[in-house]
């Protein structure tokens, strides 16, 4: 995938690049408004990660340009402003998703993949990982073509694992992905363990081997 990261904070920009390149994506960066306008105008990207507040201009202007000229490009807005108004404005202008800073890179990655699925495959994509298949439209999962009766959270968890395969996912990241704002209510992340255990059981022996423990308390979804 070819991704443009229009973000004027170089440290954040580079961290995003490092993470996304790990998945074999090709990343280009734009550190200011004119740079971003220039690149968006000249090249075609699968997805543009757009900071709303670029020092020299508004990311929303670039969003408008993109939606006029390159309709197939997915746009994901990242913003330091968490007001609902801004979010709605961005989505109204045609952004595919909106993420408020600070965010987890794993979360960004799973959002990017969701945008791509909706954009490129019209939301019909079936994600395959060896014996596991996920139908993202009907939100169902199969193992060895057998239907798995997953709860909503288990389904989200499995999808999150597969979209971030090979990455270490701490319990904090998983909690925040699954429960958003409420995850800070959890004093004790053992509860995540219960959910992962349930998922493992439903994945049967064939699927559960992919969920590995990392550093004692984190998780990693990967091939053996």
């Amino acid at each position: 995938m070819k991704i443009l990261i229009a973000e004027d904070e170089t440290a954040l920009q580079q961290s995003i690049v490092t993470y996304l390149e790990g998945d074999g994506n090709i990343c280009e960066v734009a550190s200011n408004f004119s740079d971003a306008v220039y690149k968006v105008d000249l090249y075609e990207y699968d997805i543009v990660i757009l900071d709303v507040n670029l020092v020299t201009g508004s990311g929303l202007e670039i969003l408008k340009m993109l939606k006029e000229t390159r309709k197939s490009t997915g746009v994901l807005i990242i913003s330091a402003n968490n007001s609902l108004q801004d979010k709605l404005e961005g989505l109204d202008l045609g952004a595919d998703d909106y993420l408020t800073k600070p965010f987890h890179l794993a979360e960004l990655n799973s959002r990017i993949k969701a945008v791509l699925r909706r954009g490129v495959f019209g939301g019909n994509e079936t994600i395959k990982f060896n014996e596991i298949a996920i139908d993202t439209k009907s939100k169902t999962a199969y193992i060895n073509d057998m239907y798995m009766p997953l709860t909503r959270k288990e389904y989200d968890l499995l999808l999150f694992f597969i979209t971030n395969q090979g990455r270490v996912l701490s319990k904090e990241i998983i909690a925040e992905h699954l429960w958003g704002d409420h995850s800070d209510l959890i004093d004790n992340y053992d509860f995540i363990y219960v959910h992962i255990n349930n998922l493992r059981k439903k994945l049967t022996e064939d699927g559960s081997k992919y969920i590995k423990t990392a550093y004692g308390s984190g998780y990693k979804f990967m091939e053996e």
Partner: protein
Amino acid sequence: MAISKKKIKLIQKTSSTFLWISVALMILSTIALYFYVRNLLKSEIEEELYSTKARIENSLMKNDAVYALPPVIEIKKTSKIGIEKLKDTIIYDPSQNEMEEFRELASYSEINGNYYKITVRSLVVETRNILMAIIISYFIIIIFVFVFLFYFNKAGNQKLWLPFFTNLGQMKRFSLGSEKPIHLVESSILEFSELNTVILTLTNKVNADYRNLKQYTEDVSHELQTPLAIIQAKIENIINSDNLNAKQYEHLTSIQKDIQRLTQLNKRLSLLTKLENRQFTNPEELFLNSIIRARIDNFKELFPTKIELLEQGQVRLKMDPYLLDILCDNLISNALRHTIANGLIKVIIDPQNLTVTNPGNAALQHPEKLFTRFYGEAKAKKSMGLGLAIVQKICNLYDFAPSYSFEEKQHIFKIRFYIDKSGTPI
């Protein structure tokens, strides 16, 4: 707690001072007048008695005829001279046919070689009547004067203080955060005019400070987000680089947890600011029951604690849906956070109230601080101390009344909606 003194109105205070002073003066002057007039009348009577006596002596000197006019004049021949006596006495008055009080002068004189006892008397009743007449008419006059002065004084005071009370009303309506400036009535009285200047200076200062503070909160929470995003992204990349040991990973995830706390704190502070700025203006007709059900389901996925929903009525609300979610979430998560182990949380909807209860060991020590920012009685729990402050602010926005009580080992949080019979908020 400080004992607050009972407050009375200024007009009432000045009037009552006037009233008491007047009553005291009236009583004192009446008493003084009574004694003065009484003494005057008494000395008048005595003078009359002495002059009558002198006239009798004169007439006795001219001719010896001893005559009497009882009970007013009595003359007796005696053998010796006694002491002159002035006294009050009660004797029978045949002309009135009753016992009457008299002032009596009994004196002894030697006239032409004879000794006489001359007794002259005068009726006291008449002087008493005169005394009473004077006192009563004085009293009536002074009461008229007093009533007139009282109302005149009151009306004058009211007029005098009018600018003060108008401005006081203005100040009462003054609210921080509303952009409406305060309009004060000009007054020709120097003190009031000075007061106005001070009020204007103060309110302008308070408003400016408040705006600055709000701007500061907004700026800080906004500016914090980018550095937090950088720290978070870098930590994630470090975790995903290969050469880590378990100890380092522990530290990094613990930093992640703290970043998350900061992020939440930030979000809540900026939500509070937005609530104060009244930036939520998308009211929708909402059905509290179904929203509560959805929120509870959400919590059930996350927590093993039991949450029981009792729907004793239906509540429709017209408010911002985002804020209603937050209101419900904050009440439930507050209960979850502070419940004792295995305690059952109850959420009750009746036609007027939303009540959330959780079992606890003892009532809070300072329930009045409960809805303020960063107040927490159990510091051990990782609470931000903003949840209930947000509940309070949302309630303020829609005129709901939040309250807390502790009954039968239950912490009870209640939101009263003031809903009419048809189920819509008033």
